[in-house]
């Protein structure tokens, strides 16, 4: 589904990613871990087309198409969804109105009929329950005045609504208490399917207790320095990132 080859990315003139190779197939959940500044969020944002991240080399194929040629909105309509680490507050744009516009933009793109207000409200009422999204959150401005947990739940809610082929969660666990984390994880797990892939970017192993990955990659200095199964995350948890950063192999206990 996603094939990243030798991806190099600059932000604010600084080289952040120095050649990422990553293959993600449908049905898989990949965790990207790494210390602060290793480039994990840069990878997520570059894949979503953030204008502040400049791709200086490499290729990214999404379902065989050149992803880097696409505008961010085109990527979204093609089925890529990034849950923001810091969801943006947008004063004056009603959350439900925004969700409907986003959903219909995608439906239109795929030749499906747009949902009218009644159909849309029925749909979101169903989906809102599991994520404990209440009516007030829908009728407020997008993310405005939302607590940290509400913002993250709103992100996952958007994901369940837009049903992406590839979901990228950019440190969705940061700032969440354990209850909010469980709600978010439940939402993500409900999205796991053989037709969909998920990339979980996180600093901490804790989230991976709830969203169990098939693969774990460790990023350091803008490169993937180690890949493995879910047990790699546990290893990182017990030993920290130090041994990765120094490039030394962990001593087998």
């Amino acid at each position: 589904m996603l094939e990243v080859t030798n991806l190099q990315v600059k932000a604010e003139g600084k080289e952040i990613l120095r050649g990422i190779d990553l293959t993600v197939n449908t049905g898989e959940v990949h965790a990207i871990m790494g210390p602060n500044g290793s480039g994990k969020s840069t990878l997520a944002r570059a894949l979503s087309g953030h204008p502040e991240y400049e791709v200086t080399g490499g290729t990214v194929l999404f379902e065989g198409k050149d992803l880097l040629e696409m505008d961010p909105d085109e990527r979204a309509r093609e089925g890529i969804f990034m849950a923001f680490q810091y969801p943006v507050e947008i004063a004056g744009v009603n959350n439900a109105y925004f969700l409907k516009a986003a959903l219909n933009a995608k439906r239109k793109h795929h030749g499906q009929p747009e949902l009218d207000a009644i159909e849309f409200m029925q749909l979101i009422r169903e989906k809102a329950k599991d994520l404990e999204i209440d009516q007030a959150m829908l009728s407020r401005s997008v993310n405005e005045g939302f607590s940290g947990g509400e913002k993250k739940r709103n992100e996952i809610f958007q994901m369940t609504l837009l049903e992406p082929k590839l979901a990228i969660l950019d440190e969705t666990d940061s700032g969440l208490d354990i209850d909010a984390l469980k709600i978010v994880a439940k939402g993500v797990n409900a999205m796991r399917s053989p037709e969909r892939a998920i990339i979980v970017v996180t600093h901490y192993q804790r989230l991976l207790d709830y969203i169990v990955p098939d693969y774990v990659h460790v990023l350091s200095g803008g490169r993937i320095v180690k890949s493995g199964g879910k047990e790699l995350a546990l290893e990182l948890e017990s030993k920290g990132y130090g041994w990765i950063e120094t490039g030394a192999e962990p001593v087998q206990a």
Partner: protein
Amino acid sequence: MTQLAEKLHPWVASGRPAGGPRWLQDLRERSAATFSSLGFPTVRDEEWRFTNVAPITAGDFQLAGAPTGLSPALADGLPYAGSGAHRVVVVNGRYSPELSRVGGLPRGLTAGSLGAAINGELQADREIVQRYLGQLADFNTRAFAALNTAFLDDGGYVHVPDGLILEAPIQILFVSSGESAAATVSYPRCLIVLGDRSQARVIETYVSATTNAVHLTNAVTEVFVGEGAVLDHYKVQQESEQAFHLGTMHVHATRSANFSSHSFSLGGRFVRNDVLATLDGEGAEVTLNGLYLADGDRLVDNHTTIDHARAHCPSHEVYKGILGGRAKAVFNGKIIVRQDAQKTDAKQTNRALLLSDDALINTKPQLEIFADDVKCTHGAAIGQLDEDALFYLRARGLTYYEARDMLIHAFAGEILERVKVEPLKVELESQLYTQLARDLAEVDAA
């Protein structure tokens, strides 16, 4: 005659009305004299620093005559013509009984001709007019208000008696007929008086009957809000693209009165709005909302003054502008807190969205505080659309254009959604978004 007086002479020399009661004749004379001694403001005047009135003073404006060609059907087709349940129509400053629809007004309420109220049969109206007309507007220091008063004869008039709660909005529709080939000037006048504990909604709309008519509208509105009375006031200015508009509104709010103003400037090539509100009674509350759209080579200048003269008065102010093309805007928000006005709570916000690199705004909050136990906040934000918000919307599948339009509509929406008269809100949205779509198409083409 001095050089100044000679230059000003044509403005007041001829065409001034003569009749009416003695006090009115005196008022006109004094105003004409005041205007002649003040002269037109220049950019050396602090209040006019960024707005040069030379295009007006250099213009050759003929006093607009009595209009002829305006039929009721034509009036119905004017923008915002159907905003109110009752409609007072003033053409070139003169009340038009044919175009007005003021039948079925509640008992004791007067809405109609200012001239009729001045000279009419009803003693109550004559007394009210004499008490308030020319008493609220400051024409001693303001040249354009003085000039308007020098021509005072007719206009719009609303008097809501004590205790009357009027649900249906009253519209005063000011039309510049623009039927003459020459540039014309008119001096619309309006007096709105709310008795104690009364409540009303009044909509003033300023439009041109002819597109591209070159005319100068020099308007003055005086508003008195009695004790505990509530007035929701709207001003919509959407005159021709060649029009000059100078509008001054003076509001006097007494004890526990509540006055809200919603000002929309969507037309004209040179627009200056002055709003002055005095909170002259404990517990009075004033809200000033404003939204303006400036594009092409237009100039829109909003000057507001909120004068806290008594204690325990809150005031709220939000002005927003959208600028495109080579447009120029000015916002000056003055808040005065007098020595007696303890526990004042004044909030002011001014925001402008620049759609093009050539648009320009000069903005200034101006706080003059003489009391020590007060809360005054002000904030200004000028800039482009929020890049983070744009990206967020695009990351959810909206195109750049959809995302941009959504953000601009949200920006304007904060002011539009405060309009409590539904047909007015609907038409304002439609007019604003149509103009915006045109401006944005220009931006995209550039």
